[in-house]
């Protein structure tokens, strides 16, 4: 525990709140009120500061779960692959009423009467390519057969699928080693395959040179926004007095995205090397890897990798004799999508609710972690750094297309024969090639209906749309071409031109069997659940949109609904603190706009007359004192007492 506290600057002990809550929950099974108070006291905080966290992060429970805790993914790709049926079957097998649905409430866990088993619907577990998935305890189970749940619960064993071997259209840099028969994730294998050579090279380079290579490479962030990485890095002043932090964003939770998990699981040292090179370039003495709470194995793998690297003096004091002290720490999240947003992540890392910050003034590169300059980069982005040092920025920039350089991993899930991840040269593969050649095409007899090209936040593309896309030729001239969805090159600029975005690289394919109202409702439920609730439009709008689509789905649609949905989206996008606003508005805006008939057919009823205002005279209702939150009491605590240790 003190080790966990020691990972953060002494004046920022609060950062250890999440780690301590994880410890507590692992030890006692849930976070009791004693836990809240004990941790608060340990970190010189108020109990409310901890209670705020316990109730914000869905992975923390205030009541005991069953001996076996099952988390079933409910988000789009898994839902399409039958996770609702899986959940129903599980409920039945364990002996629950089929109707209990606590999802979206603070205590979403149902425990079986004998206490042996508990189940919970959770949001995207970042394994959409092997949907449906669930976690039993800490183990991820992929490609679960909804009908074989009984075996699953009684005989839980990890069934992580072997990574695929490369498709001929792929160009693997980051995934070069993944899937090789002789590949192991220990440091020796890595070093034998040329690992940490680029770090050694970077030690001999000046900071400016590394940043310049990055700029030359044209690398754009792979986390979602596609911001040029070298430009971001150059926001750090060369003569900065405050400490500089690097944060690796391993929160991967955008529905449809599942690349970072594989990088961490299959090649942790590659990420570590990328991080260490980046630390050198930024003069960052401390790097945190913010890994989502649902990746417990990933966190362990990375911890091990860090220890191995420390033994080789790749990090720690005077790393590689360069005179540069650098530390890399793992910080686990606890199940909140908004921790992927970089300022939300920073707040979370500071031990607070992941409330994104307003920009201006809180641009991470200026006022980031602990109000110090901070660079946040995605896992994949940081891996590319290593390859850029290896190849040189100019050479790297020749991969892909102008302004869309290098390779990137696209994750395909949904209605295709061979879902999975594919590392392609950016823009060298079209949407059609991706779906029909790499991902094996649609299921037999099915037609393409729509594609969500960059994680569920991206605007949907209809299969029969025509897109006008400008192509920048190598001589700088621009040619505009009209094309079908199949012809869109998979790169940042083309997908933006098509009215959507490349986002996080998560491609969700929908075939003609899909009901768009159902699909949108599934997406809306995700956003309503994940909105941090800080700012008005997103907090209220996300839930409102979900309530409307849910009502439409259950036959209660009224004629005004499509228009209302659209305007709610309009009133959110661009008016919120963080880009979650767009992320939750774009699906609704685009679905309603692109599938008007489908929405209209579900919205036939006349608008009911306005309801009378609810008059409940408070003067008349008896004065009641509602306990602010019911706090569970931990029976084990009695024995341990307040001097107890965990």
């Amino acid at each position, binding site marked *: 525990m003190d080790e966990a506290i020691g990972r953060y600057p002494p004046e920022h002990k609060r950062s250890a709140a999440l780690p301590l809550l994880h410890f507590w929950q692992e030890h006692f099974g849930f976070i009791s*009120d004693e836990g*809240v108070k004990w941790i608060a006291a340990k970190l010189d*905080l*108020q*109990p*409310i*500061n901890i*209670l*705020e966290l316990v*109730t*914000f992060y*869905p992975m923390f429970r205030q009541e005991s779960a069953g001996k076996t805790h099952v988390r079933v993914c409910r988000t789009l790709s898994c839902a399409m692959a039958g996770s609702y049926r899986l959940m129903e079957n599980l409920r039945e097998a364990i002996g629950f009423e089929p109707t209990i649905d606590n999802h*979206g*409430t*603070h205590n979403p866990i149902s425990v079986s009467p004998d206490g042996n088993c508990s189940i919970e619907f959770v949001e995207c577990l970042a394994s959409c390519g092997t949907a449906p998935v669930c976690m039993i305890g800490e183990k991820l189970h992929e490609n679960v057969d909804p009908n074989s749940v009984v075996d699953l619960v009684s005989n839980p064993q990890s069934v992580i699928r072997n990574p695929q071997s490369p498709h001929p259209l792929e160009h693997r840099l980051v995934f070069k080693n993944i899937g090789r028969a002789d590949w192991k994730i220990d440091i020796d294998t890595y070093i034998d395959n040329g690992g940490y050579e680029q770090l050694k090279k970077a030690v001999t380079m000046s900071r400016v040179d590394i940043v310049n290579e990055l700029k030359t490479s044209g690398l754009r962030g792979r986390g979602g926004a596609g911001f040029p990485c070298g430009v971001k890095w150059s926001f750090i002043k060369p003569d900065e007095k405050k400490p500089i932090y690097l944060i690796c964003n391993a929160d991967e939770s955008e529905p449809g995205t599942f690349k970072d998990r594989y990088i961490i699981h299959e090649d942790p040292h590659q990420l570590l090397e990328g991080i260490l090179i980046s630390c050198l370039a930024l003069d960052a003495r401390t790097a945190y890897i913010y890994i989502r709470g649902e990746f417990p194995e990933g966190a362990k793998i990375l911890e091990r990798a860090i220890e191995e690297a420390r033994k080789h003096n790749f990090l720690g004091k005077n790393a590689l004799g360069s005179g540069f002290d650098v530390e890399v720490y793992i910080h686990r999240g606890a199940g909140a999508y908004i921790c992927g947003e970089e300022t939300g992540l920073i707040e979370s890392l500071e031990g607070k*609710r992941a409330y994104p910050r*307003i920009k201006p*003034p809180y641009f991470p590169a200026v006022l980031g972690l602990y109000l110090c300059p901070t660079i946040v980069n995605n896992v994949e982005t940081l891996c590319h750094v290593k390859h850029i040092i290896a190849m040189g920025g100019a050479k790297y920039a020749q991969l892909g297309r102008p302004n869309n350089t290098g390779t990137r991993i696209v994750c395909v899930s949904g209605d295709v024969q061979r879902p999975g991840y594919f590392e392609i040269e950016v823009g060298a593969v079209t949407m059609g090639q991706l779906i029909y050649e790499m991902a094996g095409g649609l299921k037999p007899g099915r037609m393409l209906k729509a594609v969500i090209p960059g994680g569920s936040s991206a605007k949907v593309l209809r299969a029969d749309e025509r897109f006008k896309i400008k192509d920048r030729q190598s001589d700088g001239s621009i040619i505009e071409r009209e094309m079908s969805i199949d012809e869109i090159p998979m790169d940042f600029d083309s997908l933006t031109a098509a009215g959507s975005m490349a986002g996080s690289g998560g491609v969700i394919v929908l075939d003609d069997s899909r009901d768009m109202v159902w699909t949108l409702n599934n997406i809306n439920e995700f956003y*309503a*659940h*994940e*909105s*941090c*609730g*800080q*700012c*008005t*439009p997103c*907090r*209220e709008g996300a*839930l*409102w949109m979900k*309530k*409307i689509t849910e*009502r439409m789905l259950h036959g209660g649609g*009224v004629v*005004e609904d499509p228009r*209302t949905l659209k305007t709610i989206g*309009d*009133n959110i996008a*661009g*008016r*919120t*603190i963080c880009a979650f606003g767009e992320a939750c508005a774009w699906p609704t805006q685009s679905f309603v706009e692109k599938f008007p008939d489908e929405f209209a057919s579900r919205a036939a009823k006349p*608008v*009911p007359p306005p309801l009378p*205002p*609810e*008059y*409940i005279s*408070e*003067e008349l*209702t008896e004065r*009641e*004192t*509602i*306990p*602010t*939150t019911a*706090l569970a009491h931990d029976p084990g605590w009695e024995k341990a007492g307040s001097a107890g240790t965990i």
Partner: protein
Amino acid sequence: MFNVQVDGVWRQFPKGTRVIEACEQAGSYVPRYCYHKKLSSPGNCRMCLIEMGLPKLGPDRKPELGADGKPVINWMPRPQISCAQDVAEGMGVRTNSPLVKECQRGVMEFLLINHPLDCPICDQAGECRLQEFSVEYGTSESRFLENKVKKPKNVELGPRVTLDDERCILCSRCIRFCQEIAKDDVLGFVDRGSNTVLTAHPGKRLENNYSLNTVDICPVGALTSSDFRFKMRVWFLKETKSICTSCATGCNTVIATREDMIYRQTPRENDAVNSCWMCDYGRLNFDYLQSERRLLEPRIFLGNKFAAVDWPTAIAHAALQLKPFSGWEIAVVASGRMTNEELWLMAQLARALDVQLIDIVARTGPGDDILLSTDRNPNTNGARLLGITSEPGAKLPVIAEAVKSGRVKALMALGENPIDTGISVEQLSNLRAFIVMDILANTATEHATVVLPSLGFAEKRGSTINGKGRLQRLNRAVRGPGNARDDWEILRDLLQALTGSNGIYSIEDVFRQMSEAVPQFAGLTLSKIGDLGVQVMQARESPSPPVDPAVSDIEKAEAKKTSGRSR
């Protein structure tokens, strides 16, 4: 100074002005919920969205100038919040464009969908920002057909504050106040998204001495004062600007009254004194004005019993009793709660009778680094300046000794109980004259030879000097009860009865006399003090001797009352 274009007109604002403030100064009020100028800006309500632009830079990185010689503004495509940014040179803002209106309508709609629309029974009605802005910036029709999110109602956050979570718009003002001003981080949000609720940890509630400020700053009816809740509709209340007299800080206040009843006190902004805040102790300390123990009639002790008399008789009797004595035969226990005017007249009286034994009762209690002063007298500095005391309370043991030894024959107690200074009941009854001027009956009153009922702080006018040397004004918010009379008038009449007419007809005359004699008051009049006061002395923190506070009856009663509330 920066040049900023607000709604088409170029104006100048000092560096560091928040855009939202600049707009307001320019006459374009921007609606807001979460922003409070004394707190940090989280930018979470999104009500203050406006259009903003910065000067368009030419190739030489210099602003391009338009035909009017002013910078051409590059408008940002998205609306921006105006509460978190300071003005910059060449900035442009539009506060009432169609886009801004649409943003405001959108946010209002979002805020209202889950809000119980039962304004007729809400306590905030009449001073609710949601109600005001929805008329001004919202649409009238609701398109919301779903069930509202259910949240706890009637949550007692602490002994004095009640919360209705359904009305809360999650602006976080109250949380930030507790963290940033009250330094007591007890409030927080639990749960997430639309289910987020404000709460306190059950084991650590909102009970700090500043808790009621959260009620003032809550823009809606979510936080209510358990004391004031549902007692009175705000639009029936008359408001009087005054100051709190419960400690030396002298927080500026507004006293809300109806028909001579005080319903509440709220802080009034004064950056030189109390910013926008006041403490709960001072805020709630007015019930004693409506106490059963109020002295209502002048009385004199005749033969062996009290007789209620009219004022001329009481004054004449008091003068008659004092006349035989002078110098060391007379002692005066005055009060640091008296106004400058009262103290001044008392000083005249003392001089006329050559009184040396005069002092005020020191009154101390635990203070804090926020507002509450250890000196619980509102006017210790006035008593110092007007020569009533040099070290408050230092002479009281001498007075007690002199009373005990029988050297003192006549004692005046003004707003204080001499028993608390160590004089026994028996010694009091042995005095030839014991003249009491006070508002409440106490253990000494029944031994008085003359009782002169006077007025409380909300019933009279006058001035005080706070612990930092600022001269401030009390105003009359209610009329005094019964036959109680303004203290300065009583003292003036007594002075006249002893020394003949002195040309004082109004409290202004008293102040004029003071301003002629006391250099610190030179050139001032009561009206020139203004609502915000005038600095007249060097900032001097009143000394806080670690002595047991001499607690008078009023204070004891208050202590019981507040402790009854807070624990």
